[in-house]
């Protein structure tokens, strides 16, 4: 079983929120109703802050953070190298985006688009790090889908919170529907994924660990069931003021994803030597 990896949890979840927000901005901006400029500026700033926090958190995972720059050395085969590169490129794109947000005129789409695409590639590389032959629970599409869904869900919810005043109703509705979609997909994915796990001894160990862990059930409650119910209720009653509810869903889902990520690391069981020592 793995460890409680705070730096990795923070790095991946915060990074994914940041990229999720930009992705949502891009998506909304391409729609018929353009994005409010104030919201755009504010959101770009916040996503950048989160990205920086995420990158800083990742340093704490290293034994020797002072030499972190070396991590770019193995693009040929190391997904970790690729991840770092893509996150740095995302950050550069974000600087461009930030510069763009300071400009009065000009299209934001290009900046948003580049940042989003690089960011998504970064998220995919992050996930690919964990696609290890040794860990059956990870050696599949699970990590990639799971990381992308986090990006989508938390990106959408955070954008909703940021734009609680400045988003148009249709935009809000889109984001809410998207969040609901992500939650349902995440739940379904997990069910399929769990059924796959039992195929190998190590996978079964992971599953067993999960089902017996109160953390997992908290995660299920916070990250799946509560958001599911709340999102449905919000979408069903469009007339009620939903700001507080949206805030609640975001917090719950955020906690759920953090727990989920913690469990992701905790529950990983590698194939190993099982002889007595």
């Amino acid at each position: 079983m793995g460890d409680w990896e705070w730096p990795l949890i923070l790095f991946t979840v915060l990074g994914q929120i940041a990229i999720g927000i930009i992705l949502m901005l891009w998506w909304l901006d391409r729609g018929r109703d353009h994005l409010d400029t104030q919201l755009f500026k504010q959101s770009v700033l916040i996503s950048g802050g989160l990205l920086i926090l995420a990158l800083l958190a990742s340093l704490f995972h290293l034994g020797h953070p002072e030499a972190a720059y070396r991590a770019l050395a193995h693009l040929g085969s190391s997904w970790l190298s690729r991840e770092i590169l893509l996150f740095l490129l995302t950050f550069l794109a974000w600087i461009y985006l930030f510069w763009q947000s300071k400009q009065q005129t000009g299209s934001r789409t290009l900046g948003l688009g580049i940042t989003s695409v690089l960011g998504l590639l970064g998220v995919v590389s992050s996930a690919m790090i964990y696609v290890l032959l040794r860990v059956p629970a990870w050696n599949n599409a699970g990590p990639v889908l799971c990381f992308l869904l986090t990006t989508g869900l938390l990106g959408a919810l955070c954008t909703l919170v940021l734009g609680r005043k400045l988003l148009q109703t249709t935009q809000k509705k889109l984001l809410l529907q998207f969040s609901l979609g992500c939650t349902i997909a995440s739940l379904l994915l997990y069910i399929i994924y769990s059924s796959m796990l039992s195929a190998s001894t190590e996978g079964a160990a992971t599953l067993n660990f999960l089902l017996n862990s109160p953390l997992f059930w908290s995660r299920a409650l916070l990250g799946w069931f509560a958001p599911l119910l709340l999102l449905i209720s919000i979408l069903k009653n469009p007339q009620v003021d939903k700001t507080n509810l949206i805030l609640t869903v975001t917090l719950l889902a955020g906690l759920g994803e953090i727990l989920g990520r913690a469990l992701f690391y905790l529950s990983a069981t590698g194939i190993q030597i099982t002889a007595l020592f």
Partner: protein
Amino acid sequence: MNKQLGFLHNSEKCVGCRGCEMACKNEYQIDATPEWRKVFQLHEDDYSLPTRMFFSMACNHCAHPECLRVCPVMAYTKRDDGIVIHDPNRCIGCRLCTMACPYDRPQINPAKKKVEKCNLCYQRIDNGEQPACVAACIPGALELVEINDTLDQKTGVLKTLPGLPSPKLTTPSIRFIGPKQGKQIRRD
């Protein structure tokens, strides 16, 4: 790569004396925690008779080393003779290799915050000497060999033993001769 060096472990001869384990520690004065080489006892239930059976394992200098693949700083290199060397000067302690190795042989040294592992005593090999573990093996159970088809075609040479990860994962450069069991007159 011209050849692939590796270990041939003879569980028929190995008595689990752990001399190799300590000879390795002595050679490099390794700190208390990291275990570059370790002697494992096979489960007695895996064989027809309960017997004390062992194999000794260090880095397997795999043909497809996962550590090397995942390492972001290129701390790992594979030499022409197949030895996978870890360079602590490059290591930044990201521990990804420790997650990727099915044999748990790269290990973090908590004091140095870097990973360490067996480098097959490449300096000794370059000097024409045996690796410290092989040189120390009293019953002659551990050998340095070239892993090739000739070896694999010999009768009794096994690619794995019970309790070990499938060699398909990383194609480890270790071969085994399985434990032999004599006749037992038991009281249970």
